[in-house]
């Protein structure tokens, strides 16, 4: 219990520091003004979300191989946290786009691919709710999870190559735009903070999942009597 509190405090601290850095340490961007600072959380959330999905992928492989409950618990925890982070990405995108370009959504390659990613993992979570038997659910969703993750580079690749022909506002700047050194430091600090948050959330969700599975087993056994 005390460990979780300390971890939680640390994460909050990191997040607060990152927020401070984003608003006060990073220099203002040339054209976009204050709203641009959302970039630090937008982009860092994307990275954290992707890492969470990678954790889910590894957990899926482990489950298929070893069939131990804990891997499934880790997989669903990582997937949920990943979806949460990607939802943040999809929300902060329009929040940024509207004041800057006057439109809510741009079919920017990365944002579009991220939307598909979100759909994939929401499907993963939905699939889990639709299979009765826990062991079948764990195995089938693990395999779908593997298929989904393997698809991710293909999604990003195809959209980047063929859906970005038209000039359009590119969130976070195109390949040419580099980050000014201080900005870069703030960005990587945000990435660190958000990854810390991700790890914390996954760990907590994992604990909850393990308790839930235990409860489920007890409940089924009681029903059987």
């Amino acid at each position, binding site marked *: 219990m005390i460990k979780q509190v300390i971890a939680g405090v640390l994460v909050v601290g990191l997040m607060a520091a990152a927020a401070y850095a984003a608003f006060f340490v990073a220099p203002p961007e040339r054209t976009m003004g204050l709203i641009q600072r959302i970039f630090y959380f937008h982009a860092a959330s994307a990275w954290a979300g992707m890492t969470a999905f990678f954790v889910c992928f590894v957990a899926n492989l482990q489950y*298929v191989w070893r069939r131990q409950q804990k891997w499934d618990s880790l997989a669903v925890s990582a997937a949920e946290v990943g979806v949460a982070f990607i939802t943040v990405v999809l929300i902060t995108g329009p929040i940024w786009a509207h004041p800057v370009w006057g439109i809510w959504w741009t079919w920017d390659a990365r944002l579009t691919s991220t939307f*598909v990613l979100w*759909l*994939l993992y929401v*499907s993963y979570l*939905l*699939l889990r709710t*639709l*299979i*009765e038997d826990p062991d*079948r659910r764990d*195995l*089938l969703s693990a*395999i*779908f999870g*593997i*298929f*989904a993750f*393997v*698809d991710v580079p*293909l*999604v990003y*690749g*195809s*959209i980047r*190559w*063929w*859906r970005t022909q038209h000039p359009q506002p590119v969130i976070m700047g195109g390949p040419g735009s580099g980050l000014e050194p201080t900005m870069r430091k703030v960005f990587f600090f945000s990435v660190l903070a958000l990854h810390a948050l991700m790890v914390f959330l996954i760990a907590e969700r994992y604990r909850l999942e393990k308790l839930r599975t235990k409860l489920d087993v007890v409940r089924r056994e009681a029903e059987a009597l």
Partner: protein
Amino acid sequence: MSLLANASVLLGKELRTEFRSRELLTTTVVFILMVIVLFSFTFDPTSAESRRFGPGLLWLAFLFAASLMLQPCFLREQTNDTLSALRLSVEDPFAIFLAKLTANTLFLLLTEFLLLPIFSVLYNVAVLPVLGWLIFVFFLGSLGVSIAGTALSAISAQARMRELLLPLLLLPLLTPVLVASTEVTKALLDPSPYVSWKGIGFLAVFDLVFLTALWLFGEYLLEE
């Protein structure tokens, strides 16, 4: 090779079953036709517009149709538990998937060929000059759809709400196929047609990746 022999025997069964009733093929053809016609109401079907939107709509129609057509794939093996009979009779369960995905690809291709002339007429696009290449991209794209679709149909057959679940799982997964196939088709239907080798290569990679994934994990989909 036992795997290929088994797969071809099973493919024979799949084809014989379908051609006897032809339910799947006829309903799929009618569905795609309906989608194509309905789509035409949503924009101004001039030649230029058609060339811009046509390929994408065509492939979208194929995807929707496939997500419906693939529903019975494993469901019909549940009626009399024939899936268990198959599992007992074949050495490598991948033969079951291989047969089904081949059959599904063939069914999809068949419906696509039946619809191509209709599409060409309704949307005023010339398909004959590039027919060979069109067949090729239809094949690669349909193969991708079938591989993923056959795998996911095995999953959805074991879940609730499977009529909604299969499209839900399949459509996001097939985004790369939609994008790449549309791209290659659009290039072929251009006033000065060209072959998008990047697109073709990409589709081939997609097919290979998912075929490998199915080969590695397919038997677990059938496990009890």
